[in-house]
């Protein structure tokens, strides 16, 4: 029997708690807030974060469940990022959910189940675990997106995300079935036998791999599969938007890392031009689309598409700098994005009011704490030192340069310049415009302020103290199931 339950302790704990919250939801009275559930959820995430921090020190790779699960440092880091994202989102949840009248215990259960799915994706040693993890991650999000039934755009977001997500899950599964047909296995290690030129199953392999990558590109919001992002991010409850923008992106990129680094090196030159094109398309689609937005949730949605493009640049360089950069940027991106959405929540009013750029006019001076924090997050997204976003972007573009892709790096920098066009509009609205409203409704939500403060401190911290996380991330790839030789053997 090959069941080492210790390897999936975090997942089991999260699942059991999720079941508890769902049960609690059945006894919750209407128009009350499940404060107890919230407290338990926060404590549990802190405890699990501490647990995974202490156990991420284990060097080497452990496998179990008949080759379905692998535990390594890469998975531990990605899991930690997800826990941080989940914890920050939980902090801003109660005030927002009560304001919108959707504060239910099931909310926490679904968020936890989504985290469970992500964790299994990070620990996937087989495409089967990867796919099921993705489904466990996505299903709760479909529900959470449509949670605000009285707000017209929320059911639309939920339904749109569900249909497109189901479609792309099917596409991905179709691809996996082709790979299984060609290779006779769904283990990630089996992918090393994949060959699209010499093998007699070459066409099948190529087709399967392409479909699989399309499915993941959809989840990551990469062009040309990005069209759902603005609509879903706008319609979903803002806390869930923040959760999706950070956690789902971490999960999708984690899965992409797992698959791309399991491939045999002779496929990568074939794959790179496609990746190059997707990265360029994604960056332009995100940044050019954001220029025309007035709703700040939509604006941040387009900016998240652009950030996925930057991340892909680092991933495509396939060198140590790129790997560190991707992990660093994912972490920085989590802080700055959750922080920005927390500010949006703090300024917002019931029924998704007060979320356009016009509404934000002059609010930065009226509420200096939130205003300055938002400015910090925006500067980090642009990539201005001393913020975490700058360090991340520096590593990503430096990786592209050292991998011999100067054009891609130049396009990335060019896109950062384009992004000034809309990021600065937010700052101008916050600080340089006269106030829009005669009566100012003070922003509410203590939890959102805690999240904003934490994110602001962390964005600065990771912008200034770079060396120790970078050193830790360097170990993440070499001490994982991904063979370190893959990178060295590249042309």
């Amino acid at each position: 029997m090959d069941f080492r339950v210790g390897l999936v302790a975090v997942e089991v704990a999260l699942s059991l708690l999720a079941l508890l919250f769902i049960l609690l939801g059945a006894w919750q009275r209407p128009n009350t807030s499940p404060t107890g559930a919230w407290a338990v959820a926060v404590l549990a995430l802190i405890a699990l974060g501490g647990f995974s921090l202490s156990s991420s020190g284990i060097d080497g790779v452990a496998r179990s469940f008949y080759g379905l699960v692998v535990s390594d440092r890469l998975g531990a880091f990605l899991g930690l990022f997800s826990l941080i994202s989940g914890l920050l989102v939980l902090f801003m949840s109660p005030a927002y959910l009560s304001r919108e009248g959707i504060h239910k215990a099931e909310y926490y259960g679904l968020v936890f189940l989504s985290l469970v799915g992500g964790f299994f994706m990070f620990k996937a040693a087989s495409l089967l675990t990867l796919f099921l993890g993705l489904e466990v991650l996505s299903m709760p999000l479909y529900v959470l997106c449509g949670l605000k039934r009285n707000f017209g755009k929320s059911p639309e977001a939920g339904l749109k995300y569900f249909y497109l997500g189901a479609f792309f899950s099917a596409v991905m599964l179709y691809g996996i079935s082709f790979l299984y047909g060609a290779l006779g296995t769904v283990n990630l290690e089996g992918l090393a036998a994949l060959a699209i030129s010499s093998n007699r199953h070459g066409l099948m392999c190529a087709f399967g791999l392409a479909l699989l990558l399309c499915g993941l590109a959809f989840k990551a919001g990469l062009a040309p599969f990005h069209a759902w992002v603005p609509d879903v991010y706008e319609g979903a409850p803002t806390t869930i938007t923040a959760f999706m923008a950070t956690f789902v992106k971490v999960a999708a990129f984690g899965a992409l890392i797992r698959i791309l680094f399991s491939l045999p090196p002779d496929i990568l030159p074939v794959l790179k031009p496609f990746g190059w094109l997707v990265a360029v398309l994604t960056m332009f689609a995100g940044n050019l689309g954001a220029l025309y937005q007035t709703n700040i949730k939509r604006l941040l949605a387009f900016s998240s598409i652009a950030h996925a493009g930057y991340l892909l640049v680092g991933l495509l360089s396939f060198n140590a700098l790129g790997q560190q950069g991707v992990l660093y940027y994912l972490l920085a991106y989590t802080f700055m994005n959750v922080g920005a959405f927390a500010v949006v929540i703090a300024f917002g009013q019931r029924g998704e009011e007060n979320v356009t750029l016009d509404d934000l006019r002059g609010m930065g001076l009226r509420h200096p704490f939130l205003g300055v924090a938002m400015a910090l997050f925006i500067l980090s997204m642009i990539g201005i030192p001393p913020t975490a976003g700058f360090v991340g972007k520096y590593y990503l573009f430096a990786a592209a340069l050292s991998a011999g892709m100067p054009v891609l790096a130049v396009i990335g920098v060019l896109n950062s310049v384009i992004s000034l066009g809309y990021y600065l509009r937010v700052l101008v609205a916050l600080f340089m415009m006269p106030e829009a409203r005669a009566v100012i409704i003070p922003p509410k939500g203590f939890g959102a302020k805690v999240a904003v403060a934490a994110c602001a401190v962390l964005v600065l911290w990771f912008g200034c103290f770079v060396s120790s996380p970078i050193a830790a991330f360097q170990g993440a790839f070499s001490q994982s199931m991904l063979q370190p030789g893959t990178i060295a053997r590249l042309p």
Partner: protein
Amino acid sequence: MQAVFFWLFSALAVGCALGVVFKKNPVVSAVFLMGSMLALACLFLLLDAHFIAVIQVLVYAGAVMVLFSFIIMILNLPQEELPPLALGGTRAWGVAFGAVALLFLAGKFFPTKEGFMPTSRGFGDVRSIAVPLFREYALAFELTSLVLLVGIVGAVLLAKRKV
């Protein structure tokens, strides 16, 4: 003895399938479809595929047919709205595709001179599916149960009026 049963259930399956197509009342058609599926389950039994036979009854004759009947009753189609049976454009295409599929299958599965391959010991019984499902793929099985759970909870959460 086996041959007798084979011809009996085959005739039943094909006859019921024809009934599905030619009966005008959708409820009657649905019942014929169920009969066809039950006959198919018996054919699977004759082929030593016990597990598939049971699943055929449980899933197709059971769950899927209940769903069909519900939808037919909810839609409540008036009978006179159904078009008369004639070999029109769409139907001609259907018949053509059906004929091609039949020829293809007949060519593929018609017993060759060597006859069919004998099955290995334990082929098609529940054990050969249950053991991998609860050992090698136990984790995947549990993950699938989480997906189903979320589906149920989500449906209640989104559809119930006052939660």
